[in-house]
């Protein structure tokens, strides 16, 4: 029963710790290499398990822990992460758990179990990884440049190296965790650790959400194969380096937990720096640093307070208690306020974004409405044109009928005239026919129809003309329209059934009525109405 609780507690902590880390560990490879991802997780988790199993027993950073310690560490780390993530989401969760356990150890009077040499390791790891990543990147670039190989061959070679290096990275992480857990406790704990790692492995194998997180990370890890190899190899080397007491002692440190997120981000920064570009802005970097420091402090304080409460009183180191109380009274409310402000700012931002989206939607809606209105107006115009055409067709048809009828009548009348014997009667009938033909030649109905059509086409102009010059007669209005259409005097004379001279006189009268000066052009003036 105790073992089962231990495994569950451990698995919870391990999942919390590895949640961001696993995605970050995959990201360099995933950003440039498209191996079937369904195959990645089982093999990578297996690498972690194997790493944990073969790990040597190292001097531990922490003293022995139990389910209660795990619970305290998990809760404190969760609280710290929850608050500090408002500043930046890039926080090393592993260090939070460690900080919470240190806080707990202090609360229980075990003294700060963290050793200076472990601290040296935590400081040395990013520095070493930075130097190593820069060196590896430069070497790879030089090798690729001097190589006569085709680029596709180099890519294929890189794919193999990246795959193997990623497996090694996961193995190194397993080694690091395993060595610490084995050193931390008895054989029972080793079994728990391995079973816990297996539980995590099962949790992550084929975890779709993690794939999504990994693909989100790809934005930050937009790197070429050389960088990916340099990042993965340097991170692997550093994590493995700090998994053994013997190797860690070379830099005056001891084997300790190393956050994969931290070393990978540092390696990425190193590669980007070598290429002369920046991974993230100065503000983002500052926020990340502040978030990590703040989260560590919160985890330490919450771990201490929680353990004290669980132990049933404040009966430990008084100075430390005073310090912790001070931090609890001043720092936690302060952080809560910062967190609250951050939340409010985020809310305001999202509110602004929503308002902007709403405004955009509204603009789109009005644009749609305008488009619909324009379309309706266009349709109306087309309908009018159609109506006009229909009338034209009707008019042509009626005209043809009328002409035919007239010609038929003419034919009948001529037939009758031919039959008439009396010369006087014949003259009278011929005179009548002449009159009829003269009348017909005026084309009154056609001209009327023409004016109707023109007025229909220039409806707006007609309205403006009536508004501005209401005193114009029907004949003058027609003249205005014909002038606007640029018809010549001769043509106007035919259409108005008057002589060209009369057209000139009508133009003169029209100028007077419109109040034009001598130098003003009549046609141009009409066009401006």
């Amino acid at each position: 029963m105790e073992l089962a609780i231990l495994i569950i507690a451990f698995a919870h902590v391990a999942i919390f710790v590895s949640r961001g880390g696993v995605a970050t560990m995959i990201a360099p490879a995933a950003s440039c290499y498209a191996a079937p991802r369904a195959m990645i997780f089982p093999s990578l988790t297996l690498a972690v398990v194997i790493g944990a199993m073969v790990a040597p027993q190292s001097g531990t950073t922490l003293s022995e822990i139990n389910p209660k310690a795990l619970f305290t560490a998990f809760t404190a780390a969760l609280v710290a992460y929850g608050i500090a993530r408002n500043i930046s989401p890039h926080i090393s969760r592993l260090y939070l758990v460690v900080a919470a356990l240190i806080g707990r150890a202090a609360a229980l009077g075990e003294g700060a179990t963290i050793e200076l040499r472990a601290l040296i390791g935590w400081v040395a790891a990013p520095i070493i990884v930075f130097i190593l990543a820069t060196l590896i990147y430069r070497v790879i670039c030089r090798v690729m440049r001097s190589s006569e190989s085709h680029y596709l061959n180099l890519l294929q070679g890189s794919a193999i190296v990246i795959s193997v290096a990623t497996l090694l990275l996961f193995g190194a992480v397993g080694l690091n965790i395993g060595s610490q857990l084995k050193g931390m406790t008895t054989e029972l704990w080793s079994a728990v650790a391995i079973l816990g790692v297996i539980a995590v492995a099962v949790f992550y194998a084929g975890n779709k959400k993690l794939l999504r997180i990994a693909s989100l990370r790809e934005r930050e890890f937009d790197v070429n194969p050389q960088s990916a190899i340099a990042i993965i190899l340097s991170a692997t080397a550093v994590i493995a380096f700090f998994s053994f007491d013997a190797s860690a002692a070379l830099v005056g440190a001891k084997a300790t937990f190393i956050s994969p997120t931290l070393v990978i981000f540092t390696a990425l920064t190193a590669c980007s720096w070598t290429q002369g570009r920046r991974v993230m802005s100065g503000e983002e970097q500052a926020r990340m640093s502040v978030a990590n420091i703040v989260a560590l402090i919160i985890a330490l304080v919450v771990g201490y307070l929680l353990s004290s409460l669980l132990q049933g009183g404040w009966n430990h180191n008084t100075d430390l208690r005073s310090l912790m109380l001070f931090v609890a009274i001043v720092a936690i409310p302060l952080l809560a306020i910062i967190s609250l402000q951050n939340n409010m700012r985020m809310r305001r931002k999202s509110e602004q974004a929503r308002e902007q989206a709403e405004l955009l939607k509204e603009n789109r809606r009005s644009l749609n409405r305008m488009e619909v209105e324009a379309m309706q107006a266009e349709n109306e115009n087309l309908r009018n044109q159609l109506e006009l055409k229909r009338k034209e067709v009707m008019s042509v048809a009626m005209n043809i009928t009328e002409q035919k009828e007239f010609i038929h009548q003419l034919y009948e009348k001529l037939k009758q005239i031919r039959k008439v014997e009396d010369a006087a009667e014949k003259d009278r009938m011929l005179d009548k026919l002449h009159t009829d033909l003269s009348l017909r030649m005026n084309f009154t109905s056609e001209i009327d129809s023409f004016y109707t059509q023109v007025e229909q086409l220039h409806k707006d102009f007609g309205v403006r003309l009536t508004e501005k010059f209401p005193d114009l007669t029907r004949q003058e209005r027609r003249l205005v329209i014909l002038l606007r259409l640029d018809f010549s005097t001769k043509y106007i004379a035919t259409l108005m059934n008057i002589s060209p001279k009369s057209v000139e006189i009508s133009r003169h009268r029209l100028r007077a009525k419109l109040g034009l000066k001598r130098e003003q052009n009549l046609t141009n003036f009409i066009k401006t109405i």
Partner: protein
Amino acid sequence: MLFFKRIDKTNQQVEAFFDTVDQALLVFKQGVKNYLYSEMEAFNDNLATMTKLESDAELMRREIENGLYSRTSFVRMRGDVMRLLERMGHIVDLLNDNLSQFEIERPYIPSELNADMLKLTDLSTQAVETTIPAAKAYFRSPEGITEKIHRVYFYKREADKQAKLLKRKVFHEMDSLKLSEKFHLRYFALHIEELSRASEKVADQLSVMSVKRAY
């Protein structure tokens, strides 16, 4: 090692594809020259060769694409390489289309324009020609790309100038030509000029690819 063998086949195909583009350029230049000097038999041979080269290039491009998809895993690089090949393939299409249009439309080109037309063809094809070593450099020595694509931009600018000169000559100095003939000549000049524009696009693409390869 099997992996590398399969990739080697794709590499060879890429090289062969670029060689085909190079060959198509030579045939195009020869074809235009033959048309201008009314060597119609030789021109028809050029046209037949060009059609074959175009279909070969298309086939090769498809095979390379298949190879890239099935044998490589670097999505971004793969996409870049395929885009480059598509752009080069488009140039071969343009070459074939242009030569076919000469055959179909039979534009009337006055002999006094022959030299200008040949110069425009030379400059445009040289712009394309210089993209080939630049494209090959991407696969072997990317540091040489920048230097090579500068030449592409140079020839493109020269081709632009020559095309303008030719069009100005046609419209301002050749009064004996009908407007329709002038338009026809302008249309052909534009088509030949289009080659240098296509080579500029390839150069732009290579420029981006070289930056991506470095970072």
